[in-house]
């Protein structure tokens, strides 16, 4: 019994270390700038900081940019990875296994590693400083292909054979059999993808150079470093604002999120 109590204390100590920064961020954002450093329990609560932060930089615009960017990547990855994953899972064609090995290489090499060359490519396509330019390097995804292939392989072959006997075409088989059965994997993959691209920073930073196309992370970084000095209340308010949509979605769908991350990586 004693070691169990010790464990509880340890776990909560760790928990406090993980909650404290978040709690401080909320506390600081809802109190006037003057009281950030003195943690008085009865300091007046205010929402002014959020309004101030929102009016000081085009966060709304950046938020829209991020939403468009994330939707674009999500849609394109689903469309591109689904047929490839199906082919790797269920079709026999010469060079398949070697090709799959080549695809897996991309799991190691994140597009950021190749940002210098990719910047040149995007430049040649005249897409620097555009949302499409941010999205392009991420549209083909070994991670997506790998994940969906795993899911498609669990579809019983007998079902597939039956569908073929009934005269369903390849497209119909994917659409009516494989997609519905792989739904949980799509949800998992989608959630992981959305949180990755909502939070992505370095590549969008180098490929954008104007307010109109900046996603929210780049906007937040610019805001915190240049516009603000050290007005903590305003900075934390901006920080919470820019992460709010994702965090709220996370709190609402906590179970799915956690299970999705498990499913997506732990297969």
């Amino acid at each position, binding site marked *: 019994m004693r070691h169990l109590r010790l*464990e*509880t204390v*340890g*776990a*909560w100590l*760790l*928990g406090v270390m*993980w909650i404290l*920064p978040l709690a*401080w*961020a909320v506390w600081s954002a809802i109190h006037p700038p003057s009281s950030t*450093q003195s943690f008085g329990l009865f300091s007046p609560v205010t929402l002014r900081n959020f309004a101030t932060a929102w009016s000081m930089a085009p966060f709304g615009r950046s938020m829209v940019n991020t939403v468009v960017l994330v939707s674009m990547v999500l849609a394109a990855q689903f469309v*591109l990875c689904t*047929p*490839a994953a*199906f*082919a*790797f899972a269920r*079709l026999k*064609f010469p060079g398949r296994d070697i*090709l799959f090995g080549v*695809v897996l*290489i*991309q799991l*190691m*090499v994140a597009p*950021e*590693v*190749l940002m*210098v*060359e990719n910047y040149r*490519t995007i430049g040649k396509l005249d897409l620097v400083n555009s949302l499409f330019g941010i999205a*392009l390097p*991420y549209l*083909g*995804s070994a991670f997506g*292909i790998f994940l969906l292939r*795993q899911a498609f392989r669990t579809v019983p072959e007998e079902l597939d054979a039956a569908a073929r006997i009934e005269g369903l075409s390849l497209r119909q088989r994917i659409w009516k059999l494989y997609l519905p059965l792989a739904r949980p994997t799509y949800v998992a993959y989608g959630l992981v993808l959305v*949180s990755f691209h*909502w939070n*992505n*920073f*370095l590549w969008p930073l*180098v490929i954008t150079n104007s307010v109109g196309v900046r996603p*929210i992370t780049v906007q*937040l970084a610019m805001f*915190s470093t240049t516009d603000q000095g*050290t007005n*903590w209340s305003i*900075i*934390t308010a901006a*920080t919470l604002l820019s*992460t709010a949509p*994702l*965090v709220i979605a*996370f709190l609402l769908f906590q179970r799915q999120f*956690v299970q999705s*991350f498990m499913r997506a*990586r*732990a297969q």
Partner: protein
Amino acid sequence: MTPAWLAGERREALQGWLLVLPALLFLTAFTYWPTLETAWASLHTAAVPGHPSRFAPLFEFKSLARDPVFWQVLRNNFYYALALIPATMALALAMALAVNGRIPGRAVLRLAYFTPTVLPMIAVANIWLFFFTPGYGLVDKLLAPFGFGSWNWLGESSTALFAVIVIAVWKQAGFYMIFYLAALQSLPVELAEAAELEGSSRVNYLRRVVWPLLMPTTLFVFVNAVIDAFRLVDQIVVLTHGGPDNATAILLYYVYQVGFQYFDAHYASALTMVLLALLGLLAWFQFAVLGRRVHYR
């Protein structure tokens, strides 16, 4: 209708290639081709007016070897990995064991551990910037009773790397926890019951039974942690700019700096090649050494 020469196996082969092609095109354009281009560029000198680019396979790599900043960056990245990987993995395992057991407030704890994972590193960096503020930051305030004075954690070259590591650990541990948690939950309940019947202590049970069974997960998390040790630079970009005196510059940050602030694409290519070589080594380790233990069926 399908012509006779295009039936059966041939038809399937064609379908296979056609279905793979679009994704492959994008992967080629933004991963495989740029990798080759990077290799090619690293073997050439930069073109300057009057001196066109020429083939000089060792030129960039020689200047790399002479560049003290490069060696410092490599050393930094080594320390970054050496601290980040074991710290996040140990914490992740501890967290998973905690929330897998019957502990008061389990749901709250799991939420607390996992939340940093869905926050962008930029947001995390903003929050920790305050904690590390000299004088009135929380870290200094907590240390003050023990006789420590005001200290600029992110601004002193002796502690800046440590500070950016702390931030990365705080952000990543909950992410890896998920994989350990998934593995723990898939362990048969009978194992724990059998251990209890045999009267073996909890420590013994964890060490002799759970730890070996978690080995595939540990290897999987390890490979991901190594990749992260080369990839997590956002907090460095916004908080320290690699400084002070390059104390927090790791390899990917240096690539960014050389490529996009010094605009030396060829030197950046040589640096990228070093990064790719290290990742290649990891890939080799994963596929050859670990073999099928990390399952890629």
